[in-house]
């Protein structure tokens, strides 16, 4: 058995020789590059809007990842946005009639999840009159909206708007003589015409070219209406959306730098502090050794999580304050004990005595002669404790005690839990953030284990 390598460079070379080391390093590199790229792909402005429900309203609600349309084309569809219209205008005295038309092909095998209409309107005094008709591939023309828009953006969710629902009910009544109490416009509009066309389960999808006609009757010259139509699917983005229409990829990507920053900063600072305090305590004398070790024992038995929850409830802290509290509760701890054992071992080496014999101060011996020897061990300790802090942050976020302003994996999981995502089958809402936490922890842990194997002679393979 050879002696453990002392330099960090040699240790890294050894780590990269083991399979676990390679896997760990690859995982960490992946997460780190993700964390570094995130600010460029999704600027922080987007992450800050995480809690702004309005901002996400263009996305479908609870959509599965869009690649599910390839795997299961019968069940998943993507969103169709109709925002380019061709217009014709005729003037009849004071009245100006503008007709916007546009068409789209609906070829999915399932119904849209929602239909939303956005009317961007402007006028001088009198509101324009608007009538919107959907012409279906089977020749049916169904009026889906009739009304007077306000100035600015008018959002009409056809699936929820009572007026539009009434229009659909009257269509059903005139055709089949029934007026259902609950009506689903997104189904009726895209179903083959028969008595079951209001039933999502029984109706079949009518595929083909649909045409949207918007008639605007304007009463003054300034009047202008820009329509947009959203036919929401149930698949969106790489990781889908949650119940608040948020694109989960933003949360998952921003989770990486946040988890990494929190985990590594907490791990580096606490391990450094613990090692330095522990080593100094042991090195400077029996009494300080006793003091540090007993305080470490104390900190090891106090339950940090409940205390952090308490602190959080009282002060309502953000992520950096949380980091501060975590560090405060980890000034001494396990790593101090490791440092103690190492100091006891290193101080018996003759070069330490030699240093004293040529007049090196105790401080110099500690920082220049002893701590560099512990550096590889500190690295292993940091890599081992980083996932602990990532889990801690995730736990607090899950309990809704983390920083409320930024997305994190724990918070996404917490939201999913509150909405009963797994029970209701929204698996993408749970699996992806959980997978990220697992990957980061696995990366750190594998790396730490292979590191430990290199620096810890007891674990070295022959």
């Amino acid at each position: 058995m050879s002696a453990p390598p002392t330099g960090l460079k040699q240790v890294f070379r050894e780590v990269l020789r083991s399979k676990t080391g390679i896997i760990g390093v690859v995982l960490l590199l992946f997460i780190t590059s993700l964390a570094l790229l995130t600010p460029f792909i999704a600027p922080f402005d987007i992450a800050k809007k995480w809690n702004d429900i309005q901002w996400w309203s263009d996305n479908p609600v609870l959509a599965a990842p869009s690649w599910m349309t390839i795997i299961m084309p019968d069940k998943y569809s993507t969103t169709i946005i109709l925002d380019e219209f061709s217009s014709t205008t005729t003037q009849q005295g004071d009245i100006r009639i503008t007709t916007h038309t546009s068409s789209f092909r609906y070829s999915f095998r399932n119904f849209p999840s929602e239909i939303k209409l956005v009317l961007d309107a402007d006028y001088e005094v009198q509101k324009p009159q608007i009538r919107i008709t959907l012409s279906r591939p089977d020749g049916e023309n169904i009026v889906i909206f009739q009304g007077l828009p306000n100035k600015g953006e008018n959002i009409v969710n056809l699936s929820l708007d009572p007026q539009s629902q009434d229009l659909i009910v009257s269509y059903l009544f005139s055709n089949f003589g029934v007026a259902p109490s609950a009506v689903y416009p997104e189904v009726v509009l895209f179903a083959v015409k028969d008595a079951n066309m209001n039933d999502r389960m029984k109706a079949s999808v009518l595929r083909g070219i649909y045409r949207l006609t918007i008639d605007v009757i304007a009463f003054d010259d300034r009047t202008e209406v820009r329509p947009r139509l959203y036919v929401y699917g149930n698949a969106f983005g790489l990781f889908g959306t949650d119940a608040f229409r948020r694109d989960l990829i933003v949360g998952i990507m921003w989770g990486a730098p946040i988890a990494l920053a929190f985990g590594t900063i907490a791990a580096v600072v606490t391990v450094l502090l613990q090692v330095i305090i522990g080593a100094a305590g042991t090195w400077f004398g029996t009494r300080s050794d006793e003091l540090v070790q007993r305080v470490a024992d104390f900190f090891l038995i106090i339950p940090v999580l409940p205390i952090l929850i308490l602190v959080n409830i009282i002060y309502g802290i953000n992520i950096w304050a949380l980091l501060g509290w975590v560090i405060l509760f980890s000034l001494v701890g396990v790593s101090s004990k490791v440092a103690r054992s190492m100091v006891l071992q290193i101080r018996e080496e003759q070069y330490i005595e030699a240093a004293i014999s040529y007049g090196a101060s105790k401080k110099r011996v500690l920082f220049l002669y002893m701590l560099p020897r512990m550096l590889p061990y500190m690295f292993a300790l940091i890599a081992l404790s980083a996932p602990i802090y990532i889990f801690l942050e995730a736990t607090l976020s899950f309990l809704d005690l983390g920083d409320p302003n930024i997305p994190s994996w724990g918070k996404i999981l917490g939201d999913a839990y509150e909405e009963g995502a797994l029970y209701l089958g929204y698996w993408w809402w749970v699996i992806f953030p959980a997978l990220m936490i697992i990957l980061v922890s696995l990366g750190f842990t594998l790396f730490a284990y292979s590191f430990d194997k290199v620096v810890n002679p007891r674990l070295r393979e022959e």
Partner: protein
Amino acid sequence: MTLLKVSDLRIWYPVQKGIFSRLGYVKAVDGVSFSLNERETLALVGESGSGKTTLGRATLGLIKPTAGHIIFDGKDLTKITDKKQLMEFRRKTAMIFQDPFSSLSPTFPVFRILEEPLIIHGVKSKEERVNIVYRALELVKLQPVELFAAKYPHMLSGGQRQRVAIARALILGPKYVVADEPVSMLDASVRVEILYLLRELQEKLGLAFLYITHDIATAKYFSHKIAVMYAGKIVEYGETREVLRNPIHPYTQALISTLPDPDPKNRFRMMVVIKGEPPNLMNPPSGCRFHPRCPFANEKCSTEEPFLREINEGHFVSCHYAGEVFIKETTTSAVS
């Protein structure tokens, strides 16, 4: 001129069981006195556990003595409290260690190892430090110096490492160097080289050595005076030639008789091996500490403690029957 004078030095380690009950003391060094002149080598000989290393370290102020005085260059080391004086003392003294694999910091290259004492003692200019370091490497014959200065200890052989350790000991220009078994962990071939080097350096730089060893053969080669330690006490002290030619204490006699003798005429001579083991220093034997193992011990030896007395000129022995008892070497006839 006397450089170092140690008088009645005692180093007792308290042995504790739990926090309150004190079991007693390990008397590692118990009432030792000797003096060392400038440019002189004193060999401190004894088996492991006899307190020789403890004594050597105490003379460097690395261990605080329980009682007694260490007077170095006219100043009492046990009374130095001033940091400046202590640093002055540190500059004038140095130590060479037994294990060249553990006595050099593995994280520093040779240059940094040798530079450290200079930094600590305030040699400000880098250029000057480089000069001193290179000169020291030349002195210990590690050439080319630039090549060795850049190496890390793990790249060097045992002998080369010990040379670096010697260079480090000499870099501050000390007057007094404690060499704690400097060659016992080296290969036999390297051993002689290092001893030659040490002797050469002594002549060149005028060093005084305290040469701690369990090997009388190298002591004979290297030292001017010799002190034999047993169980924390000096039992015999004098000029090396005189002590080796005419050993008086039974313990010294036994030690010397164990030396391998190259003379083929003596090939059937039996070595006299002292029976038993060194005593437990927490509870040393009463009277003469050697009496349980001494072939000549009687009533008086177990009750009355002997003191060092001058038997011949400059030859001190601590034995009640000094000059009267001699270990006879038995000779066997041909091996049957």
